């Protein structure tokens, strides 16, 4: 029986970090966005341990960097579910993807009280298993592991439309009126991820797939810069082919950008990449405008033992790295490390198990 567990561990071992762009245009119906000034900080969704229904939500308070854990269960008297995957602030609401529970929890971003739970089901009423979110123009787009992207209307809080993409889609990003989604074909690893290796380009005008752009095996994360370039992190096949970042230009040409990258985040024309090896953690900042590459050691002080997530505060450039408690423990409460833009450690906060994604709220 152990092999099913391994397979599932494989899946849950994949990490994600939010690609929410904190769009200004809150086409939000409730209009209580003004209250957001009364609380600022960062939401963290914690993965939990697969099969243990212990995903959780934490909140890091600004400006003193204190953390409140289990804020969802405290507000709602029930658990978030199994495998917390992504979190996104949009308008007055917080969207939380809980992958194995097949639910997108929509909660009030100030109180964390549940407003509704969106359950993506296909025609056969099978769970579609949500993965990643991105928001744009009053919509939240969610990649669904059964090969779809759902468009959630933030006024009705319902799935308005779905578009079929490649198998097992992962991260997504919006650029130039298009949505880019990584088609991983991750469950086809036994067959070399044969039907993935691509990024679906979806027109936001009519929510249809325009084309598939070939990329390296097992694409996972997608980021977009201000110039309309899209960066795709592919994890490789865990065997012969290593991980890499490729750049898709405005005219859909694909070039290798960097190799050996586990996590990446783009902020204000700087692409940050993170990778771990037996020699320790490497964190590289690529200034996309000046071409200056700031290498490895710009993180100072204690470094995360086993990173699970990575994000950047676009206001001040603070780096957030979620981490398991150690390299050999994936079931105990992990940490969020906060580094200033200069790499100095600002805070180390105990969060839930496997902090997986961040959403900034100001």
């Amino acid at each position, binding site marked *: 029986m*152990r*092999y*099913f567990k391994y397979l599932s561990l494989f899946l849950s071992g994949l990490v994600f970090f939010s690609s929410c762009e904190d769009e200004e245009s809150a086409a939000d119906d409730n209009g209580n966005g003004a209250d957001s000034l009364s609380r600022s900080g960062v939401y963290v969704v914690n993965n939990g341990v697969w099969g243990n229904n212990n995903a959780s939500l934490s909140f890091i308070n600004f400006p003193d960097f204190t953390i409140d854990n289990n804020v969802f*269960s405290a507000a709602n008297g029930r658990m978030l579910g*199994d495998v917390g995957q992504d979190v996104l602030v949009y308008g007055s609401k917080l969207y939380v993807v809980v992958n194995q529970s097949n639910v997108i929890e929509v909660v009030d971003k100030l109180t964390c009280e549940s407003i509704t739970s969106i359950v993506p089901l296909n025609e056969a009423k099978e769970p579609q298993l949500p993965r990643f979110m991105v928001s744009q123009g009053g919509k939240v787009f969610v990649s669904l592991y059964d090969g779809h992207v759902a468009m959630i209307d933030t006024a009705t809080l319902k799935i308005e439309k779905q578009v079929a993409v490649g198998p097992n889609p992962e991260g997504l990003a919006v650029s130039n009126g298009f949505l880019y989604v990584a088609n991983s074909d991750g469950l086809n*690893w036994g067959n070399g991820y044969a039907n993935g290796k691509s990024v679906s380009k979806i027109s936001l005008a009519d929510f249809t797939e325009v084309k598939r752009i070939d990329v390296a095996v097992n694409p996972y994360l997608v980021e977009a810069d201000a110039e309309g370039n899209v960066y795709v992190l592919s994890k490789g096949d865990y065997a012969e082919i290593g991980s890499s970042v490729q750049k898709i230009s405005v005219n859909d040409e694909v070039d290798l950008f960097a190799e050996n990258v586990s996590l990446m985040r783009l902020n204000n024309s700087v692409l940050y990449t993170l*990778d771990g090896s037996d020699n320790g953690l490497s964190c590289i900042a690529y200034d996309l405008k000046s071409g200056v590459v700031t290498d490895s050691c710009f993180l100072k002080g204690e470094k995360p033992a086993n990173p699970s997530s990575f994000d950047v505060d676009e206001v001040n450039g603070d780096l957030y790295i979620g981490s398991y408690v*150690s390299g050999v423990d994936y079931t105990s409460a992990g940490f969020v490390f906060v580094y200033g833009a200069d790499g100095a450690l600002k805070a180390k906060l105990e969060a839930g198990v496997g902090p997986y994604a961040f959403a900034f709220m100001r």
Partner: protein
Amino acid sequence: MCKTLLRLFLFMFWSCSYAAERADSIVFSEKMDEFVVTGRSGSFSVSSSTPVQAFCIGDAERAGVQYLSDVLRRMSGVAVKDYGGIGGLKTVSVRSLGSGHTAVAYDGVPVSDCQNGQIDLGKFSLDNLRLVSLSIAESNDIFRPARLFSSAATVELCSEKPVFEHDGRRIMTRLQGGSFGLVSPYLRYEQKVGKNSAFSVSGSYYRADGNYPFRLKNGNLVTKERRHNSDVDAWSGEANFWTDVSERSSLSAKFYFYDSERGLPGGVIYYNSFSKESLSDRIFFGQANLRSDLSPRFSLQFNGKFNWNSTHYHDEGAIYPNGKVDDKYFQQEFYFSAGLRWRVLHCLDLAYSSDYIMNGLNVNQLSNVQPERHTVLNVLAMKFYRRKVQAVASLLNTVCLNYTEHGEAAEDERRLSPSVSVSYKPFDADFNLRASFKDGFRVPTFNENYFDRVGSKNLVPERAKQFNLGIAYASDMMRSFAFSADAYYNRVDDKIVAMPKMFVWSMINMGRVDIYGVDMNAEAFMSFAKWAKFFIRGNYMLQVAEEKTDGSVNYGSQIPYTPRHSGSCGLAWENGFLNVSYNVSLVGERYSLPGNSEANKMEAYGEHCLSLYRSFVLRRCKLSIRGDVQNLTNKQYEVVRFFPMPGRSYRLSLALNL
């Protein structure tokens, strides 16, 4: 081997003594004077130098057991991991060493699973069995295949051997029905062939829907749910043949077949009850044993086995390529063992046994490496026995060679594992002191070595050291009373675990666990009148099993699924009219994950079982009727977190022996 065990245990309870009383009609050359014994004994051995427990299947009613997992749950030091329900996986771990360190042997030959390393007890029914025993560290029977020296604990299943009374044939039937769609018929036919031979054939079918209700607690939210996709459908068949080749030699052979299909409901996932996973298993094995007493001093035995095993895992859903996943695994094993025993002196035996095992695995995926493992085991064992002292020592050499058809093979292993035990009887009374030590290990399973992208070829074996000190006492006071207590220390090093490193999972050797524990057993039999026979038994287990991995944040924490306190007790009143037994298993608080936090805590539970039974004898026929209420208090509990166990359930069983 089973014969020896039976001799060892001098059974008090009627079912076994029943067999023994009738034993003179047996067709075999067993010396029955060795078999029929006087004085006490019961479910644990007093004289053994290591803890040995046994359960006579004839006592099933009295102990309220239905399945092999129930039998083991009643034994000291045993934890049965039960994933719930009738078809749920059930594995056994002894004294917190993990299921990979426990071997299960059927009539002296181990049942193996080289892929997972753990045996699903749910695949064995009690129908064909006569005795189940558990020996921790080494058994005192040194004339055994080397392979049985290689695990930290051994569960032995001994099959029923025919005992003919009248016309040389016997038919046994049983029909069982119960809650959640349980239906199970069983038929066995035994026949004497000529003067010196006999055979038996048996078959059983087993089906259940397993869709039991349960209460799900999620924070303040309590909902009523029902298990689904937990149906099971299983067939099994067995044929046995025994013959006395000569005055001094006997041959036995067994063929076994098992075929099951079951839904895998999986763990409960909050807000998502979708489940379509299923598993089909097919097992076929044939084995033979030849034993020969060459002279009063020398005995020889040979064992051989062929095993074929297929597992088909199926799941469906739009997330999979082509909407489904079908993983098929095929295991093969060839096994051969030869052993020699030499009675050097009237108080000293030497035994040597040499085993060869070939294991292979085929997988239907592209990543199939087709691993093959050749294991050669050689053991030299010595037993010294005087009236007051018994000492057993053995040294096992293991050579494990790995090959693969494609890709790199795992590292080979060569190891020595010693074991020593001694028991001492200081007084005339049946009182014994015992001490034992064993240094063993388990080699990584094929999954651990080769599972696609996760397995690791340079794993070293997981080591387990066992120390035990104990006392055992038996008395004829009030007819019969026995008590045993053992204190032990186990240490596990280089535990094999799956670990993610920057999102990539791999198998690593990591960590150490220290286990301190106490096992206590007591039992008594009192007979005041024909209508007032009482059987009382109880056991208690203390286990302090601590994570002792350097640098671990959970250093000093109790390891998962290990209650500090647990135990069971049972009471049976046999009156000849309607016999009653009541049994309860108690399991204390434990944790579902390595951290001992409140969130990981699982609450204590007690599971109560009431059985009513009676037998009627009509001429040559014996009719037995039995009714059980399992989980009498309808307690909602879990053995494995998020795998809810059934609430109150009922079973009725009718058995007819002709």
